[in-house]
């Protein structure tokens, strides 16, 4: 699924990363626990989270995560956005809850990617 489709399905606002909207993601992960994300997430994944701090970007960076969706309308601070720009990570924000956002992407065909 293209990141652009993720954005459309979640009616999400693009915060940064317009140039990468046509990149493909093959799986998704919804979690506020970066410890778990670090242990299980594969590359080319979209990460959905309610957590809004620099460690979310760092975690995504280490895992080669392509895009992050902040749920419940959360808006990252400029320093967090700057980190994402440096790492070519797409940032999106949706008003949906984590549960609803994950449900919509699952319905759209995305899967967890964890064996």
């Amino acid at each position, binding site marked *: 699924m293209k990141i652009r489709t993720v954005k459309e399905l979640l009616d999400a606002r693009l915060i940064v990363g317009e140039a990468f909207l046509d990149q493909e993601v093959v799986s998704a992960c919804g979690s506020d626990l970066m410890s778990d994300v*670090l*242990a299980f997430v594969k*590359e080319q994944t979209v990460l959905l989270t309610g957590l809004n701090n*620099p*460690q979310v970007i*760092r975690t995504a*960076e280490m895992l*080669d995560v392509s895009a992050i969706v902040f749920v419940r309308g959360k808006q990252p601070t400029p320093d967090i956005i700057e980190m994402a720009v440096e790492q070519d990570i797409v940032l999106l924000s949706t008003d949906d809850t984590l549960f609803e956002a994950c449900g919509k992407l699952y319905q759209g065909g995305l899967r967890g990617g964890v064996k």
Partner: protein
Amino acid sequence: MTQETKENLVITQTYDIEAGNFTKAGEAASNIKRLLRQLGIDAKIVRRVSIAVYEAEMNMVIHSVGGTLKIEINPDEIVFKSQDSGPGIEDVELAMKEGYSTATDLARELGFGAGMGLPNIKRCSDHLIIQSEVGEGTYLEAKFIISKEG
């Protein structure tokens, strides 16, 4: 950060890790990832090393009083070594169990402290040594073989 290159193609970088500094946490891992990429190392290995170094760095920021993180790269393998000055791990075997954690509320609020760090470092690396002494500190050495994945 200091860097030196020796004649036998060993690149070494050393980073000081500050306890409790959650803003800077991850910078060493980020720099190391960039270096490995620049050296043209296989993306899968880069990913494994990055995850392990980041977990180790977060461990030091969350649990230790501070220490150093060193990475050595030669054509055959990547080795990272971390040494902190305390407080040390009481029961290393227990700390290696998934889900066992002694992390603070602050670390948990930031999305860490689920007791996955050391097991994840072990999973990512080809060889892991942990030596810890309560009151002294913890030494960790993780090896990643480059030739294995071509």
